[in-house]
């Protein structure tokens, strides 16, 4: 008797296109050539993750990216992460201000009441506030009931909308983790874009029963979390890879059509004293090049929408 049933050899979703109905297959080469507003070709999107990692956060079923490394109660892990909200963010503000970059703050809602100063500083700079769930201890995954998850989504949007006064149209699922219905719930709550899927370098339409969302590219492979946190590479390798990505994307943006370079930044990682200068150098180089500008997630979404590309 085989352990593999006969049904294993049926492939009901083996068909043209994807094995789900969330988005269409699309090859980057087939996207018509276009320019962003003002004749720009490459938009740099700085997405700053403002995160709260509760000390008692669960480690399963999904360990959040950057989650606690040591047994409870890990003051070490907690305070290392909280450093980003006190010191790191200030350093990041200075560097981004210097280069005239308005970022998207992908914010855990729990931070709004905890650290109102943080929200004030974000708003003062004209940054966009996007919802990144409640906190890093409340990830979205398929073992939650729909009701539980709807409550988390609702709490995140209502808290951040009330505290920011902004429409809050963007959603980033903490740790790029979604359940099967996260996009539906987020669309119901009035979001216009998500940035959790890492399968493209340009936006695309993402279908939900509550209408289409725009899925924006937010690179995980180029995030400080992955390169510096997970892969333990020295900062020189971060700078090297971001530079290499910029070269390819800038060239494509001029020869093939508009592109986006996303910077996925966590203040407790990239804004350590020995690392922040690398970001300063990178932004200096990026924004000096012809045809490059920075934009927030919502600005990119709205420009993309205006282009009418599928």
């Amino acid at each position, binding site marked *: 008797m085989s352990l593999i049933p006969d049904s294993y050899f049926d492939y009901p979703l083996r068909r043209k296109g994807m*094995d789900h109905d969330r988005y269409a297959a699309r090859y980057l080469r087939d996207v018509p050539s276009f320019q962003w507003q003002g004749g720009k070709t490459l938009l740099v999107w700085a997405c700053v993750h403002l995160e709260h990692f509760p000390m008692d956060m669960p480690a399963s079923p999904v360990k959040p990216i950057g989650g606690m490394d040591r047994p409870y109660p890990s003051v070490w892990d907690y305070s290392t992460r909280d450093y980003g909200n006190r010191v790191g963010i200030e350093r990041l503000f200075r560097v981004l201000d210097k280069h005239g970059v308005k970022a998207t703050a992908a914010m855990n809602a729990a931070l709004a009441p905890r650290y109102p100063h943080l929200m004030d500083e974000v708003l003062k700079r004209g940054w966009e506030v996007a919802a990144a769930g409640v906190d890093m201890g409340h990830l979205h995954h*398929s073992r939650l009931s729909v009701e539980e998850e709807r409550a988390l989504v609702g709490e995140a949007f209502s808290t951040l909308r009330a505290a920011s006064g902004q429409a809050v149209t963007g959603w980033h699922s903490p740790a790029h983790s979604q359940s099967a219905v996260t996009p539906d719930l987020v669309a119901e709550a009035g979001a216009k874009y998500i940035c959790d899927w890492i399968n493209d*370098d340009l936006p695309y339409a993402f279908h939900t029963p509550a209408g289409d969302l725009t899925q924006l590219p937010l690179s995980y492979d180029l995030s400080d979390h992955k390169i510096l946190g997970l892969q333990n590479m020295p900062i020189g390798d971060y700078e090297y890879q971001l530079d290499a990505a910029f070269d390819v994307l800038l060239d494509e943006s001029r020869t093939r059509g508009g592109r986006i370079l996303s910077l996925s930044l966590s203040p407790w990682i990239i804004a350590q004293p020995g690392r922040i200068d690398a970001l300063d150098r990178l932004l200096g180089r990026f924004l000096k090049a012809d045809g490059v500008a920075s934009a927030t997630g919502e600005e990119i979404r709205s420009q993309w929408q205006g282009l009418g590309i599928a």
Partner: protein
Amino acid sequence: MTKWREPYSYDYAPYAGRPKIEWPNGARVAFWVAPNIEFYEMMPPPSPTREVWYRPEPDIINYSMRDYGNRVGFDRMADVMAKYGVRGSVSLNVAVCDHFPEIIERCCELEWELFSHGIYNTRYLYNMTEDQQREIIRQSRETIKRASGQDLDGWLSPAISNGETTQDLLAEEGIKYTLDLFHDDQPMPVKTRSTNRLVSVPYMMECNDVPVLNFKNISPRNYLEIIKNHFDRLYAEGEESGTVMCVPLHPYLIGQPHRLHILDEALKYVTGHDKVWLATGREIAAHFEAHYYDRFTAWMQPFTAEAQA
């Protein structure tokens, strides 16, 4: 169930003292690139042996990371390979022929070889009966023929998940070469229960972007150095007897903007040497089978006898 203590696909055969392999036009190294063009299902049926995904399904970060290769990475990789005149030998999850026929069309235009890497990378051979494995091999052959007109000659088990007798089945089903064995830097006859010949062709994990970049977390700049060093040594040794160098790649990794230059610089480096045969897996296996299979088998006799004693 008794577990096998070794694969029984080959007997010990030292690197020294072998018959000399000569590649076409006096080349020292047969160089080939194996793009793995894969489809990972979002909600695959469970495997009794291993968890398919790392997070509760849908594991969207890991699913979409791989989907990037088909949407974006493949064309970037193909452009760079075409620039250097390097053909790919595609390790293909054959369901890609149905999901993304446009990718297969471009592979055919570029005169790349297609061989089987199973139906999906989320369907392992673990726990399958021999008949079930035969079904996968036959379906691979039919699908590749239908989509490209090509014959199926090569095999890399999906997610390298072979059973004990998979190599026997491959030979019985008429597969010409296997990539499942990592025991050598030269092609070798594979020992099977079939009278059909099966050749192992080197497929180098040391230069494979998944272990290098994903498992070992090596920086792209060091990856380039690994490939160059690997090539230099095989090129030097190839003067004595022809060697094989394989660079196995995944469009979802190498086709990322921050890594594409590795491929460009690696191919520039390799094609800058004159004693290199830019080959496909099929061509390497066929050349070995025609000229060296018998000589290697004869030379290996004492070692084979030793193993049987």
